[in-house]
């Protein structure tokens, strides 16, 4: 017994070192789960506040290019409105009796937000946005940018939220081929932030370079037909049953400054019956 005590005293520093490493390791393994998100929410007020101060300084230097991007986005939205109005005019599926009626699966509210911190060089990248609980943001909301899909809200504090973007190795996006509606899963691997892989594309599927990949709409996170990317390269080995597909992502995460958070109006209703 005394020998054991002496041993413990003699190696106390080493044991403390091991103990602390184990604690740190538990943090690593448990990272991004509920406990961390909780701690994160509390810390977000301080960390987010500092990041916002930093951003408010840096954003002055970006005002010009930001404005150009906003103008571009506005123009595109106007185009979309016009196209929709034309379709309505022509009859389409919006008959007189259903004019002004929104189909349940398209009923999303858009919350504009600004990116105040981001990373692109990790395996698990993230974005911090200047919107939180008080703006109606909750976890698992989709986020899109001007070019297409961005990511999914992972944790929220009162004023800020942290988004796991497409370029996060834990995120899988339910996508489809725009031309034939074939469903596949988009998954990213470090380090190339402009490219991701498309999984579950079987040999019989008609897929070629240049095909557009969009969201499938098979979740309460994103509506259908939001651009995800464009097929860049398709490979299949002699005996393989699935394609290896490289997709050039629609969103450029380096220049992402303004995004929209998608709030699906009927999430609870959908969750309660699924």
């Amino acid at each position, binding site marked *: 017994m005394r020998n054991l005590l002496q041993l413990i005293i003699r190696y106390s520093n080493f044991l*403390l070192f091991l103990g*602390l490493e184990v604690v740190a390791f538990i943090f690593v393994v448990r990272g991004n789960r509920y406990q961390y998100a909780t701690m994160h929410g509390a810390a977000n007020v301080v960390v987010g506040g*500092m990041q916002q101060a930093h951003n408010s300084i840096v954003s002055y230097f970006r005002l010009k290019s930001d404005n150009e991007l906003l103008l571009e986005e506005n123009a595109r939205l106007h185009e979309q409105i016009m196209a929709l109005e034309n379709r309505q005019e022509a009859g389409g599926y919006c008959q007189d009796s259903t004019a002004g009626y929104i189909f349940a699966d398209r009923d999303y509210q858009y919350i504009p937000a600004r990116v105040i911190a981001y990373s692109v060089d990790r395996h*698990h990248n993230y974005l911090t946005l200047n919107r939180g609980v008080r703006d109606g943001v909750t976890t698992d909301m989709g986020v899109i940018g001007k070019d297409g899909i961005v990511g999914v809200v992972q944790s929220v504090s009162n004023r800020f939220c942290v988004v796991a973007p497409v370029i996060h190795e834990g995120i899988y996006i339910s996508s489809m081929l725009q031309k034939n509606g074939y469903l596949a899963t988009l998954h990213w691997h470090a380090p190339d932030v402009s490219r991701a892989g498309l999984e579950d594309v079987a040999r019989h599927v008609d897929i070629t370079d240049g095909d557009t990949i969009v969201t499938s709409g098979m979740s309460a996170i994103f509506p259908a037909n939001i651009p995800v990317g464009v097929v860049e390269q398709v490979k299949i080995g002699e005996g393989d049953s699935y394609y290896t597909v490289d997709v050039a992502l629609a969103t450029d995460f380096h220049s992402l400054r303004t995004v929209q958070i998608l709030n699906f109006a009927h999430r609870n209703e959908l969750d309660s019956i699924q």
Partner: protein
Amino acid sequence: MQDWLKYIGLTLLVLFLQVMLVDNLHLFGVCHPYIYLWVLLMLPIDIPRWLQMFIGVAIGGILDLFAHTPGIHMAACVLVTYLRPLMLTGFVQDAERLKGSVTIETIGPDNYLRLLALLVVTHHALLFLLEAFTFAHFGYTLLQILVSSVSTFLLVLLFEYVRKST
């Protein structure tokens, strides 16, 4: 006492630079210097080793909060604060008689370079391996470790010489 206030002030300044400036530089995707190793290396040597490790936990924890990397910086900082006294005993004669901060003046340029190089490489190796959490892209991780280590090494030396000459 005054030395401690100075050390804490310097630490806060370097941590601020790290999370607000350096973490936002994305150089070629592989070069990510961690300049805070400078203050971790400088930590006064004549305090109990358990306290050094807890200071490592605190500094690592703060960085993890800002970088959204739970535990990763903490693990690397604890490793550095644990190994530093051991390496010092290996390099410097009468290491237990050293007082105050570890700087070029207190342990000499040769020992400082050796200690810095070893600590930077161990720190970066653990950090990037934990971050990747896989050996799948080992070549890429290795490149990250090498390039980042060199950049950290040079930046810390730069800081140390600026400090010395002011």
